[in-house]
Every structure is written in C-alpha cells, then in structure tokens.
C-alpha cells in the first residue's frame, strides 16, 4: 500500500495513512529461533495499540524490529515495516539514526539500565535535542525543563541536574518518558514501561501515558504482559502467542468478547474477582512451544481445549469476526460461545 521512498526526508512524508504498518513480519534469531512468525499490525495515527503476550511470545521483538534495534548480525528480518510511509527495512544506518529518537521514540522497562549513569538526566535530554534539532544549549535546556513539567516531575529545575541513581523508580520512568518525547516524535514505542514499578506508581505512569498520548496526538504501541495495564491505556489490543498475533480488536472486543481460546485462557486464569475461596484456578495446561522447533498447524493447538485434527495440521488465517476484530482460530465461533457460557456460569460471575 505504500511505495518505499528511502531517501525522502522523514517528517513531511505521507500526511495520511497509518503511523506504523507492519506486513508479514518474521524475525529469526541465529537461523533457528523464529521469534516472530508472520505478524501484520497497523497502527493508525493517534491510536494506542497494546501488544500483549507472555514471555517469548515475540511482542518485544516485534516492537524492536520497528526501530531495527535487534542485533543486525544475528537476526534475520523479513517482511515490510513502514513508519509514516517510510520503509524502515531499506533504511541506511544514517537514515535509521534520524528515525530513532526523532520520528519514533522508545521507553523501556528498566530506566536505570536505559539511562546513562554518568550523565545528569538533563544533559541526556538536551544532548538528544541538540543532536537532532541543532538547537543551542539554552534553548535545549528550556525545552527539557518544559518536558519535565509536562511529565510532572516535582521541582523540575533541580531534577534536571540529578543523576539517574538519585531519583526514585517512578521519577526515573517519568524522566525516561521526557527523554523519549524530547524531539517531539510522532510514534512512541513502550516496552513494558510499568512492569518494574510499584502498584501505586504504576497507575500514575499509565495515566500519564494515556494523557500524553491524547494531548500530543501520539501514536503508541504499548507492549505488556498485563491485560489490566493494556486496558488502561490502549484503544486496541493485539494478543500474541508464539510469534503470531492470534487475536486483535478494540479493547472492548478482546476483553469482553474474546474469540480465541488463548485469550479466553488468559482472561480466566487471572486470580481475581472470579473466584470462590479455595476453588482452583482455571489454567492453560502445558507450556509455550519451542520456537526453534515449530510444528505444523496452530501453535496453540497442543494446549487448546477446543483443538481438533485440523488445528494440528493447518495454521488458521486471521479472519474478521466483527468489524475491526480479527481472530486466527479454526474454531473461533465455538470459543466465543464457550466464553459466554463461562460468564453465565455462577462460579465465574
């Protein structure tokens, strides 16, 4: 749908069309481990999409592929990725440098590892602004201060001169968000940004991200393993399993009327509300497949409560079950019916 224009400048390109479009993305490590296996994902402008899945599902690898952050010599990436119409796959090193931080910015799970310990936080932000936009020290510092106020760091003037280790966990995460926003990116990629935080701090950061996304018109991809965090920030949710997106739709569609047995399993294995004391939790039996040894058929079939012969032979394509709601399952109707039944059963009330 887009023509690659590798050498065109980044900012004015294609004012319409999706912010990020990923087509048939596969990522293979060391020639054996196929961590991502045919992912299609479209992020519309101003939208927040959550990629959820368990460890090894390929959600972070997908996110990193958008900025081509996976180690070049060990990774084989296939498929197409465009950011604002620009083909990321064909970019030179120089073009990638311009893309990273300026058009697309990323925040990570552990700010203490992502920030440089030997420079003050303010210095790291002004450096990014000066490098990308050629501003002078004073102007860059003024923008950094503005950013600190925006992410609501208390006494921002003083905090600009703090080193990462002098800040608390929540404040460091705010500083990293400020750093990510330093060059006014259009796309924000967040890799488990609240996982390492305490509960009372996590909700503050989730609300901050939601607010910034709306105010700045950011397009956001938010990787998380926590359905609750996804619901708090995302318009759409894509559920990943074994390197594939198995279900994608609006947050309402995925959480309230899931059509994939894996999504249903995730929802019903949560240890909340639903339980009678002393009852057992619903579990998904078994464990995720070995990605170096993929078997034919649906990767979830060995753990699925609905699997039939066909599931073990053929990979189900992603089909729309409702407008904007796609599911890759041969038995999605039966799965949806099973979920409605569980909801109706008194134990799951």
């Amino acid at each position, binding site marked *: 749908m887009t023509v690659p224009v590798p050498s065109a400048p980044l900012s004015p390109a294609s004012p319409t069309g999706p912010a990020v479009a990923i087509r048939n993305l596969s990522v293979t490590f060391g020639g054996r481990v196929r961590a991502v296996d045919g992912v299609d994902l479209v992020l519309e402008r101003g939208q927040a999409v959550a990629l959820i899945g368990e460890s090894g599902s390929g959600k972070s690898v997908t996110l990193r592929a958008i900025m081509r952050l996976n180690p070049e010599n060990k990774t084989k990436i296939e498929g197409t990725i465009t950011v604002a119409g620009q083909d990321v796959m064909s970019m030179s090193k120089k073009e990638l440098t311009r893309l990273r931080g300026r058009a697309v910015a990323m925040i990570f799970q552990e700010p203490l590892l992502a920030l440089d310990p030997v420079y003050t936080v303010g210095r790291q932000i002004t450096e990014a602004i000066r490098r990308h936009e050629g501003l002078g020290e004073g102007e860059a510092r003024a923008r950094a201060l503005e950013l600190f106020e925006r992410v609501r760091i208390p006494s921002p003037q003083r905090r600009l001169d703090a080193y990462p280790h002098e800040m608390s966990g929540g404040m460091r995460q705010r500083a990293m968000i400020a750093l990510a926003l330093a060059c006014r990116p259009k796309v924000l990629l967040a890799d488990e940004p609240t996982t390492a935080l*305490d509960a009372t701090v996590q909700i503050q950061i989730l609300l901050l991200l939601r607010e910034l996304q709306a105010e700045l018109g950011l397009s956001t991809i938010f990787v998380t393993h926590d359905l609750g965090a996804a619901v708090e920030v995302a318009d759409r949710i894509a559920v990943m399993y074994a390197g594939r997106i198995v279900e994608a739709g609006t947050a309402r569609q995925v959480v309230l009327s899931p059509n994939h047995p894996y999504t249903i399993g995730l929802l019903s294995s949560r240890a909340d509300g639903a339980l009678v004391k002393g009852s057992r939790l619903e579990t998904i039996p078994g464990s995720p497949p070995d990605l170096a040894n993929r078997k034919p058929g649906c990767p979830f079939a060995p753990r699925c409560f609905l699997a039939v012969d066909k599931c073990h032979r053929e990979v189900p394509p992603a089909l729309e079950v409702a407008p904007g709601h796609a599911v890759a399952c041969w038995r999605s109707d039966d799965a949806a019916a099973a979920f409605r039944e569980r909801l109706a059963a008194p134990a799951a009330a």
Partner: protein
Amino acid sequence: MTTVADIRDRGGPAQPLLTVDGLIKHFPIKKGLGGKKAVVRAVDGVDFEILKGETLGIVGESGCGKSTTAKLIMGLIAHDSGNLLFDGETIGSRALPMRQFRAQTQMVFQDSYSSLNPRMTVEASIAFGPQVHGIPTRQAIERARSLLARVGLEPTRFAARYPHELSGGQRQRVNIARALALEPRLVVLDEAVSALDKSVEAQVLNLLLDLKQDFNLTYLFISHDLNVVRFICDRVAVMYLGQVVEIGPADTVLASPSHPYTAALLSSMPSLDPDNRTQVAPLAGDPPNPIDPPSGCRFHPRCTLAEPVCSAKVPPLDTVVDLHRVACLARQPGSGHSAANALVAA
C-alpha cells in the same frame, strides 16, 4: 511420606505456629561524603502471628520490609530486637535450636534460577537438604524423585536435568519440591509466583493449594499482587515502611479495607473494564524513603485523610472487629482525628 507433623506439634492447634513480636531490623548505611551514620529502618516494630494450617499473606510495595521480615523469620539475617517464637519456643533457644527450626521451616524465593545451584541436577538439589540432616543418600534421592512427581515433573524425564534445562515454571516447581524435602511445617513463599507468566502462575498456585492440603502445611505468602493474595490467603497483613498498618481476614481487608493505604493499593489495580478505566491515580509520588520515615503515622504525607494529629501521634494497631486490626487514627475513637470523633457519634 507425610506426616510427622503431629509428633512435632507442641502447643496444640490453638497455639500459633509462629509468633512475631516487636521485630526490628535497621540496616546501617553511610550517608553522603562526610560518612554521617544513618540507618534504613527496614523492619520497625512488626507483630503478627501465623496460625497452624493457615496462609498468611504479606502485601506491600518495595521497601516496605516484607522480604526483610521473611529473612528475619528464617534466621537468614539477625534481628536487632524482638521475639520470634515457633510453636511456642523461642527460635535458637535450647528448646528449639536453629538446626531443628530450619528443618521445620523452608523458603521459596522469587528468582527460580538464582536459587538453584546451576551445577547440581535438580534431583541432587532436592536431596541435598535431607542428606545434610542425616538421611541416607539413597533414601534422600528416592524422596526427591517422589517429590518431583508430586509437583508435576515426571522424575524419569526431569531428575537428571540441570536448572538451565528447565523453564521458569518448571524451575519454580523444583524449588517447591526442594522446600518440601525436609517435611517442613511452615513454608515461606517470597514472591514465589511473581516472576511467572500468568498462565504458569495459575498452575503453580493450584499446586500450592494441593500441597498445603496433602502435607498439612502452613504458608507465609509474600506478594505484591493483591489478586493472588486474595485467592490464596486466609489472612493478610499490609505493610508500609517497615510496619504493619492493617491485618485481618483476607476477604474483609481486601473487600472493605480500613486503612487508607490498603484502599489506595486496591484502587491502584488497573481496571479490566474498558468502559470504566481508572480516572485518577489514588496516590501521588513514590513511597518515601525508609531511611528517614515521616513522623507520626508514616503514611500521613500521602494520605487523603491526614490531619495535624497524624504527624504528631503514632497510631497503634487497634482492633476494628474480631481479628481485623488497623493502625489509623481516623479509625480510632478518641484519637483526636475528626473522622474518629464521627465514628463515636455514629
């Protein structure tokens, strides 16, 4: 292979299995360039009891002292003051030497990988404890294999494996098997399921429930996940900056919390309802530093109910109803807090 628990039982079912009384642990640190002495008040006057056969949960955010409490109970670090009684006997006393206590109390840690010796097969790891405590090697290995089977790992497939050959969930099952190898009465689970993926976490929680029944165990379950605590715990203690601020039946505490901090923790949980997302964060800022905790009630700088009296007076842990106790001046008639006066009027 159970259960000699009845023989080891001293005080009968009514006597708490573990009594923690006035437990204090301060870690000295050097502050600043001048090397001025300061202390981290990690655990600062904690009292609670664990009844026989129950699961007591401890919840709280990082730095609240929940893991330090666990380590103090296990004797992994020495406490500054306070008493620890196991089934009525002081731990480390002549009546209950440390070695005897350790055989009856085991711990499972959060990081399943770093808590196993990478150079020992899982079978050898599980059999190690019993061997140290004088069980012949062959018998210890036999026990290890039956425990592996009990935690859902086929011994013929898994006994000879090394930790790196297992998934996170499988490793945590090994750690649980190892904890059970000495037939303990109390198992301390310190964030034991926190690092696991949700679907695996559910499997391990079910396993813990089954084992508790089969082996007649008592659990101390430390976690930051209120959903998990609600599921597995009979009673729960909420800690804030080294102190217990609320303790009581899990159903009561987590359904109608009495302490404003417990309430804030509960409403900080992300909503699972897309039509009803959280609008305002219940608390601003991070938990304060345990080096220099606030005066009076330690929660008062972040509390919506705070009044001048809260920074002046330390709230005692007082009974609300029955076993439910809370340390909040707003809940204590006669404390001088205006909300408490209203309680008396009502």
